[in-house]
């Protein structure tokens, strides 16, 4: 590269030019991202502190085992693999858009920006499904000597220890027929809840197969808040990234960057988008893998 010789002759710190040889806006984008890394870092580290202060923490393979359309099939980490793949893929299309920008190819930039936007929207839809499933999917838990049906919310979650067999047997006797009927219906969809509730309680208890229900205690309360807080903050970054990318696509299509003579704006939007992917690497690590 001939540019290296130029670099040595340049008086970088004399003013009037960037000592780092980058445009001001791009440098400031880097510093913004560095500060944002500390924000995400602080969230994840406080999650780590709480997790280290507990004797028990839920196993992600137990929490994240559902896949759209697969019902109760146990598929640990399958759906989040899809989400991760979508985000890596959209990072590639983004860097290809930046590449076409360097060459001044407007059609290429628009094509790859459109794919990046689609990837971002797909990721957000996946996250919406995941949240909906966690919040509304009710699981039987043992609490205060009886069975309750709860989903994962900020106030509690069903991901505690496996409950002791003798405790569960006692708890079934203390639980309402409605809850028992729902538990049976969950595994036998052909039996209607209303019909089940007409049966005597002893018969209902006999119909519950303890080998397949895996009743747990309530998990650490902090788990829900941290999960929704941090993945939500990341999801909001993805959302704002999609909006920025849509604006960039519209500006490119109107020829704004051709008139400016450069596609540096695409580069800056690209930095933000890659940062969102970078954060996902660590969210994925802290919540789904370890």
């Amino acid at each position, binding site marked *: 590269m001939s540019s290296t010789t130029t670099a040595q002759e340049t008086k970088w710190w004399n003013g009037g030019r960037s000592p780092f040889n980058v445009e*001001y806006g791009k440098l400031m984008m880097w510093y913004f991202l560095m500060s944002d890394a*500390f924000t995400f870092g602080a969230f994840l580290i406080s999650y780590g502190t709480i997790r280290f202060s507990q004797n028990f923490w839920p196993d992600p393979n137990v929490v994240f085992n559902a896949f759209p359309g697969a019902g109760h099939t146990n598929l640990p980490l399958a759906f989040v693999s899809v989400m991760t793949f979508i985000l890596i893929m959209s*990072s590639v299309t983004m860097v290809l858009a930046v590449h076409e920008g360097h060459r001044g190819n407007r059609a290429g930039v628009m094509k790859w920006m459109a794919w990046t936007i689609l990837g971002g929207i797909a990721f957000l839809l996946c996250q919406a499904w995941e949240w909906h499933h966690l919040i509304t999917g009710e699981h039987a838990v043992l609490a205060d000597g009886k069975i309750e049906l709860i989903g994962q919310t900020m106030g509690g979650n069903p991901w505690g220890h496996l409950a002791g067999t003798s405790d569960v047997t006692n708890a079934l006797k203390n639980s309402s027929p409605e809850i028992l009927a729902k538990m049976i219906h969950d595994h036998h969809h052909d039996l209607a809840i209303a019909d089940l509730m007409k049966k005597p309680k002893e018969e209902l208890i006999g119909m519950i197969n303890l080998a397949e229900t895996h009743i747990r205690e309530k998990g650490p309360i902090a788990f829900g808040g941290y999960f929704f807080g941090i993945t939500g903050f990341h999801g909001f970054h993805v959302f704002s990234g999609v909006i920025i990318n849509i604006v960039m696509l519209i500006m490119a299509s109107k020829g704004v960057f051709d008139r400016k003579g450069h596609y540096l704006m695409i580069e800056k939007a690209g930095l933000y988008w890659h940062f969102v992917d*970078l954060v996902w690497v660590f969210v994925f690590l802290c919540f789904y893998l370890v």
Partner: protein
Amino acid sequence: MEHQTMSEVTFHHHVPGQENVKRIWKTFWLLLVITIIELGMGFSIYFIHKNPDYSHGLVLGIKGAIVILSLAKAFYIVSIFMHLGDEIRNMIMTIAVPLLLFIWFIAAFLWDGNSYKNLRNKYDKHFEERTLEKKDAGGH
């Protein structure tokens, strides 16, 4: 693009060609393979946990390896996709050096959490009894 660009930029990186596209796809495959290995390792913990007397050291080792692989992914995203590796060294340092704070940040706060757990287990027997595994669990 040889047109007038920012006056603050003294020289331009040469216009990237086909070899840049090749590098992008190479990085993509690398990230994909690392992610699949990570998922495999995370998944293996699920099976190790099924054995009641599993080795805690083994699980910790696997988790440590996943953390290192994640750091490798982060390096490739920042260096290749965000082109930080192509910038001037001084600029890289103004971003990388402040991030060293994370070493203290992570160590201190995980240590703190762990110490709180030990103190609670020592002085709050109710907490310990309530949060440790039940003896007859897993039988169903």
